[in-house]
């Protein structure tokens, strides 16, 4: 019924899980719905933190407190988005792997991850000095701008995938 896989991506796509999702009428849209709910939660909570880091909102609240309030929700939602995203990918792996928007999205998410790691493990070391600052140092603001711009472009890539999946082969 399905052709023999000729590479690793086809092996994933033609796995029983991949085929089940691809053949189901409701699985892909339902998983995608959960993906959307999770990703807007990531966006919304990141926005709160990034605006505080820019000194544009919540300026009376220490940055540590804003981080405590948002970070766990950002992470929980990100895990859900990553799991649902992987399930969507499994159902059409070879189409995703040749789609430039998908590949760009993965690359930008890696950059966003590095930006976050740099902020939490390097910039954050001096948090005591700017925890309560209404206008934090440039390194903090730069990290926030990068985060906002990257995630906006990531959303664009995500939507672009939906409009271009299948036109590249």
């Amino acid at each position: 019924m399905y052709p023999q896989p000729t590479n690793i991506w086809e092996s994933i796509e033609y796995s029983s899980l991949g085929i089940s999702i691809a053949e189901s009428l409701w699985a892909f849209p339902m998983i995608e719905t959960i993906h959307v709910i999770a990703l807007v939660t990531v966006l919304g909570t990141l926005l709160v933190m990034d605006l505080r880091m820019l000194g544009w909102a919540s300026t009376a609240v220490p940055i540590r407190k804003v981080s405590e309030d948002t970070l766990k929700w950002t992470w929980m939602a990100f895990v859900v988005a990553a799991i649902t995203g992987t399930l969507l990918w499994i159902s059409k792996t070879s189409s995703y792997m040749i789609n430039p928007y998908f590949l760009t999205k993965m690359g930008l998410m890696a950059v966003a991850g590095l930006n976050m790691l740099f902020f939490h493990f390097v910039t954050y070391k001096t948090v005591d000095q700017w925890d309560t600052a209404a206008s934090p140092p440039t390194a903090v603001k730069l990290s926030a701008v990068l985060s906002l711009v990257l995630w906006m472009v990531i959303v664009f890539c995500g939507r672009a995938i939906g409009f271009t999946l299948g036109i590249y082969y």
Partner: protein
Amino acid sequence: MFDLLFNITDWLRNTFLLDLAFWITETPLSLFMVENFWNVPLAQVVHILGIGATFGATLMLSLRVLGKAGTHQTLTAQADRYISWTWWGLLVIVISGLLMITAEPIRNMVNAVFWIKMVALLLVVLLSIGFQKKVRAAGASGAVDGQVTGGMKGSAWLILFLWALIMLCGRWIAYVPV
């Protein structure tokens, strides 16, 4: 469920909405939206960013009421921080949403899921107005933590549930046959 949705859509097809939708497809704005490949995806991107702002702000205020985030801040402080964002985000959602409807009026207006989404949106707007008033009143009542009632917590959950339902419908507009 699918039968019910199909029957509602079938009924919608016999109302003025079908003629209205066809008329919209001929308007300059609709033509502009569909003549460039990227206009619809870009409107959707703006729509998602707007939902991020509104849902994020709604979530943070709800979590404060539920005692799960921001408890170091007063209800009034959290209300001041987040309420305006829920409405500015909604403005972005509505404008981008209207552009998307104008681009594809038949897929939206002659679609049971779209109208379920609109009813849910109306409900969440009305509920949010009441909820936000109660949060402000509780914040102004004097006590540091305000008087959070069970009703307010129930409203917070219901608002989050309705937003999830709205997003569910938003995605399924694209998948149900019209």
